[in-house]
């Protein structure tokens, strides 16, 4: 027994070293975002005072506040949309028999397998035709119903015992009442997983926001990628901007770690 305990301590020590190495880039981002402009990267946070002004500069010199608001609006809108819309869809696919049901289900599974880039050219053209180019609609509306969310809700609903609904039918409840008053509250954990997963993916999304927006509706990840090309943006400001894009997902993770883990493994367990 003591042999086993000792071995596990060594595992911990090894993991600690590994973790320090893994996290180094992120730690450097924090330190770098607070270093003076002329610094070459060997900034010592314990000797020099941190330059908090790097963060303020982003909002004064660049339209960074707008990028932040765009990111927040799109992430919240898409998250709310998925919670509201995926539930009835997933419910209907799990419980009701109707013409076209299996097509809609296989389409959801299929869309997950289709690489996104197949659609970048036609999406760009189509969004232009709609007059939505460089608007928040362009990067929110197409993503209001995530097929992953549909599959998540569907599998959550299918483990709810049918007796729950049958009892409600006997009491004279209609389909809408059953869905929103009885089944939805039971599936709240799955909806939390869905909301956190969608928020995370939308906040970090790059490809479609990059293709479908110009300066006006630009989100944080796209703005960051563009900063790389600007000669005027130095490393401390770049890292400060990267920090602002990172802090919200860290906060979400701290509060909803369980939901994120469940969301990641949800896809695997089903197969």
């Amino acid at each position: 027994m003591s042999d086993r305990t000792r071995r596990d301590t060594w595992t911990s020590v090894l993991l600690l070293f590994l973790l320090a190495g893994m996290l180094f880039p992120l730690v450097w981002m924090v330190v770098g975002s607070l270093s003076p402009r002329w610094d070459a990267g060997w900034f010592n946070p314990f000797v020099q005072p941190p330059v908090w002004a790097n963060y303020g500069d982003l909002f004064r010199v660049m339209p960074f506040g707008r990028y932040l608001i765009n990111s927040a609006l799109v992430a919240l809108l898409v998250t709310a949309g998925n919670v509201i819309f995926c539930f009835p869809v997933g419910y209907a696919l799990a419980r009701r028999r109707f013409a076209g049901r299996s097509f809609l289900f296989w389409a959801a599974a299929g869309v997950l397998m289709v690489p996104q880039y197949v659609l970048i050219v036609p999406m760009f053209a189509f969004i232009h035709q709609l007059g939505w180019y460089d608007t928040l609609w362009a990067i929110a509306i197409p993503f209001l119903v995530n097929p992953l969310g549909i599959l998540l809700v569907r599998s959550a609903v299918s483990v709810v015992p049918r007796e729950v609904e049958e009892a409600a039918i006997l009491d004279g409840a209609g389909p809408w009442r059953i869905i929103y008053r009885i089944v939805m509250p039971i599936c709240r954990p799955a909806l939390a997983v869905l909301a956190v997963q969608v928020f995370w993916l939308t906040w970090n999304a790059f490809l479609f926001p990059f293709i479908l927006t110009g300066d006006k509706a630009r989100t944080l990840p796209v703005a960051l990628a563009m900063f790389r090309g600007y000669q005027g943006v130095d490393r401390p400001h770049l890292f400060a901007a990267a920090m602002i894009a990172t802090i919200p997902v860290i906060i979400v993770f701290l509060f909803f770690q369980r939901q994120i883990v469940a969301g990641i493994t949800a896809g695997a367990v089903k197969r």
Partner: protein
Amino acid sequence: MTTGHPPRGRHTATSWLLVSPWAVILAVFWLYPFAYALGLSFVSYEIFSGSWRWVGFANFAAVLANVEFWQALGHTVIFTVGTVPVTTTLAVLLALALNRRIWGRALFRAGFFAPTLTATVVMALVFLHLYGQGGYLYSLAGWIGLPVPEQGFLLSEKTALVSVMVMDVWISVGYFALLFLAGLQTIPAELVDDALIHGASPWRRFRAITWPYLRPMMLYAVVINLIKSFQIFTEIFVMTQGGPLGATTTAVYHIYVAGFERFNLGYASAAAFVLFAVIAIISLVQFRLFAFGRGVEE
């Protein structure tokens, strides 16, 4: 129909009302653009005049005859073959370590996941600076005696692609370790205890107990990692823009350049479908291989 159920017509109408959000999004933002892309791949489209001409399979022929496309596909294959096995192996080892009785397990789990949690663009920007002249990784490599290109890792044809690959492994190990850990945690404790009592060797325990629980996760992990790797774009756009001298131009970057920089929409769509076909075939082969392996063992 038993009594108490609504008439069938109304039942179907209600069902369709429930699924309408997905039906609309699917039709408008997935099926229509998909059909549009398929159509584009068979025409020559003049973006400035808006005129188009049916060209049959000419775009596909142009893709297959283009040396640049094959080079880009080659880089994509190198990237995938170089990263997926490494990430998978390291992730399994990490998951096995995290599954032991160690202190601070929750902390470790969260910590290793942090690089995945962060946006790819953010990680790519930080690594861009780590790899450059005077960057920490650049200095570290020089200090331990590795041959370093004087212009920095990302500006040398020899090291640029490998550098992006190293970063990819760095970022995604935590994600896959979490997946495998979830698989390991479904192993019943009695099974492990039983094996320990009977004095089974660590390797035998892995083969007989751990592996069967890990395998379903393994198939899923390898397939999604493969699909993800074949689509690598963000890292390339942020870190190298396909350079130096095309050394990191991957398939999707090639498609992006064709469509959005050279405005050759027909060619870009055709190339996208060729790549799509390659990914589909590889995924199918994988499913087959894993299913076959199972048949042999049982």
